[in-house]
């Protein structure tokens, strides 16, 4: 085996036995011995035949939907769970962050919790003592260290936990997405920390739903779906594939219950929507049908990326355009034109027809049509306005 492989996972399987009626008491054992109905156990295959290798200094992403087995895999890597079958080898000191502030006790003071969490991370009392001031000032909690943790706000707790976590001295870090919770300020700190990890050539396994974070930091990624490793490869490809999983789902969902994605009193309704994409122009053509006499309608649209993030949008009121009153049976067409500054991918277009108050909805249609952008260049961001690079 090459020297630089630090995590090696070979054909790992993990099953969980889920008793339908858990025999948690001695009486339970006796009664379930005699009644067949309660003895059935269900086996949950949480991971099936997972194999991969991670090299030293690599930032490796694990993506997949809820319940696909990502967290189980992370716990197996951390040694918390034992694999049912297969082999895991890790080389070097490994620190898992399944959660921030592991071991925190609400009944203890902030100071005591620093020492406790420090021990969990493998620091002796002396070592924690040496960096105590730094930890406290980084968390900006100097005034509160003698108070009990239960009197901290959740933001303060996270700050304290995070300022402990960044001290962790490990060769391999396992980071669950929980690290990326919190307000914008905190997330910025997190991402700064990730950059530091990258710079210091730490090996990181990162589980996340946030494709932009995965694209930005991970060198390689693995997609887990239905408890199997579907693909391992370059981050971009994996992220795209992951997003496509949701698209497939959305299509089938749309067919099932369109009503959920479309509502309103239908006084006027969207008859037809077309999105045309040219190299530098996007044209969204909305045909509005009037079912009842209607005064000063508002027509709006919105573009969402594959992850559901709203990219842009507007409505006629915003653009200070007053549409004429409509009589029953009349059809008008509204064309929205915008420069094509989107980057490659598929986008959803939502259309909204509203009363002049901009609140009451006549017809709201999420995902009325799709927009496919293909410029044959990949950016990890939604907006690709085209760039000019000038070197002086």
């Amino acid at each position, binding site marked *: 085996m090459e020297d630089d492989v630090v995590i090696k996972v070979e054909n790992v399987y993990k099953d969980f036995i889920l008793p339908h009626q858990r025999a*948690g008491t001695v009486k339970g054992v006796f009664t379930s011995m005699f009644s067949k109905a309660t003895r059935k156990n269900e086996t949950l295959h949480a991971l099936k035949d997972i194999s991969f290798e991670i090299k030293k200094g690599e930032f490796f992403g694990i993506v997949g939907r809820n319940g696909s087995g990502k967290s189980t895999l992370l716990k197996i890597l951390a040694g*918390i769970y034992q694999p049912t079958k297969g082999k895991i080898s890790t080389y070097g000191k490994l620190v898992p962050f399944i959660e921030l502030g592991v071991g925190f006790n609400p009944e*203890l003071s902030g100071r005591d919790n620093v020492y406790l969490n420090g021990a*969990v991370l493998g620091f*002796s009392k002396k070592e924690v003592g040496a960096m105590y001031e730094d930890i406290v000032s980084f968390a900006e909690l100097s005034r509160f260290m003698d108070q009990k943790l239960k009197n901290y706000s959740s933001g303060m707790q996270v700050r304290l936990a995070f300022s402990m976590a960044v001290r962790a001295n490990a060769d391999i870090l396992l980071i669950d997405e929980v690290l990326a919770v919190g307000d914008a300020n905190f997330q910025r700190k997190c991402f700064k920390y990730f950059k530091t990890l990258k710079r210091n050539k730490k090996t990181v396994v990162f589980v996340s739903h946030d494709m932009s974070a995965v694209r930005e930091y991970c060198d390689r990624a693995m997609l887990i779906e239905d408890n199997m490793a579907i693909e391992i490869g370059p981050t971009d490809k994996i992220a795209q594939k992951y997003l496509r999983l949701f698209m497939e789902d959305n299509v089938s969902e749309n067919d099932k219950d369109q009503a959920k994605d479309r509502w309103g009193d239908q006084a006027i309704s969207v008859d037809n929507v077309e999105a045309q994409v040219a190299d530098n122009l996007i044209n969204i053509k909305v045909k509005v049908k009037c079912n009842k006499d209607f005064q000063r309608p508002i027509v709006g649209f919105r573009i969402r990326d594959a992850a559901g993030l709203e990219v842009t949008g507007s409505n006629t009121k915003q653009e200070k355009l007053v549409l004429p009153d409509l009589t029953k049976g009349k059809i008008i067409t509204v064309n929205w034109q915008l420069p094509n500054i989107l980057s490659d991918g598929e986008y959803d277009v939502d259309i909204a027809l509203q009363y002049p108050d901009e609140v009451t909805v006549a017809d709201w249609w999420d995902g009325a049509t799709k927009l496919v952008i293909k410029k044959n260049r990949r950016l990890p961001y939604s907006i690709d306005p085209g760039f000019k690079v000038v070197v002086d």
Partner: protein
Amino acid sequence: MRRYRYSLILLRELVRTDFKIRYQNSFLGYVWSLLRPLLLFVILYLVFTKFLKVGDNVPHYPVYLLLGLLFWNFFVEVTSGSVTAIVGKGDLIRKINFPKYIIILSSLCSGLINLSLTSVVIVIFMIVGHVPVSWQALLLIPLVLELIVIALTMAFFLSTAFVRFRDVSYIWEVTIQAAFYATPILYPLSRIPHSFAKFLILNPFAQVIQDSRYVLITHSTETISTIYGGDRWIWAIPIGLTCVLAVITSTYFRRRSKSFAEEV
């Protein structure tokens, strides 16, 4: 080496935390863990010497009783504390990987700290009561070691069984009450029928207590060797029993500890 360093760091911090949690918000704090066995001692002493006159023919009966009570107190503290220990640390077990025996060792440490502090009281009693001390007192070291092994054996078994069967805590509560009277803590073994005494002394815990009293306090203590007429080999039974059970329960603990994270 690194593995043990981590275990040691974690163990220290767990014991410290345990301490702080247990005695916060109480006025006398730590003093209670010393006061509790001593108050119990005062009650039992009054009942058994002034009213029942059980210890009349035992020299230095107060020290004799106190030693038994403190050993018993240690045993109860470690075992009863361990029953829920693994489940109680479920939060930690589910989030990091560490040797699970640390949890049991932290209960043991709390017990040992109390035992060593309360034994200061024994020393005071021995000085006040003019109990002669001989070199034989050094035999107390292996005896305390045996006591620790007995407590650990039970602790490993109870904590592991409790993960699956929550009845264990209730069963143990009753068992420990019965065991208190089945062990010669309050009464000298000479006060009960010889055939019965022969049986009771085979209990490793009874053997440890009696032998400790013999080497430290008075040679009139009935030990396993005096009851069986000086047969030295008879020691093999309680000690062998301790060793076998220790191996079985620690193996049981080690095997099952791998799936603690999924079950707690």
